[in-house]
């Protein structure tokens, strides 16, 4: 079982009482707001869940694993997620071997 946008939209329909169209748009907008903030270089802090931060990584040497050819990995900006204490505590006791595909 995997949680996707469709399940989130169903929950907004059931729990918040949005209509199906609004529920779908709300889920899309939720993630678009976060993407938009990160795109402008702003970090996103969702208390009780976690923080999305940006890291600027310098260029580093890389290699084409097939040919062994050296190719530089260009400098880039990447998103990192740091789970809140609350989220870490919520998942730490999931039984090993009990992950659902």
């Amino acid at each position, binding site marked *: 079982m995997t*949680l996707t946008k469709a399940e989130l939209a169903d929950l907004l329909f059931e729990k918040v009482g949005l209509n199906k169209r609004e529920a779908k748009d709300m889920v899309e907008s*939720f993630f678009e707001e*976060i*993407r938009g903030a990160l795109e402008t270089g702003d970090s996103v802090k969702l208390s*009780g869940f976690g923080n999305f931060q940006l890291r600027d990584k310098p260029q580093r040497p890389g290699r084409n694993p097939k040919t062994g050819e050296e190719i530089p990995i260009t400098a880039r900006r990447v998103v990192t997620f740091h789970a809140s204490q609350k989220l870490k505590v919520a*998942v730490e006791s999931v039984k090993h071997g009990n992950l659902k595909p």
Partner: protein
Amino acid sequence: MTKSDLIAGLAARFPQLVAKDADFAVKVILDAMTAALADGQRIEIRGFGSFALNYRPSRVGRNPKSGEKVSVPEKHVPHFKAGKELRERVDVSPVRG
């Protein structure tokens, strides 16, 4: 951007809804994401990214104050992998300031 900024942004996108709907929607989404991970499920949001759990086996740690050995039990930790669209949109040539 904080959670309140996110709620304000969503409220502005949905002028037909009352402000408390955006507030409640954000809570429902984040609670559902937390519950899914706590249940051992993955989260896959196309264009945004995926959340999964990584396993950390038990290990012997040390109390940094006393130097005493303590056994740290096995656990899972949340892991986020950015999706293609998010990766490409944040990776502008860095503008600082």
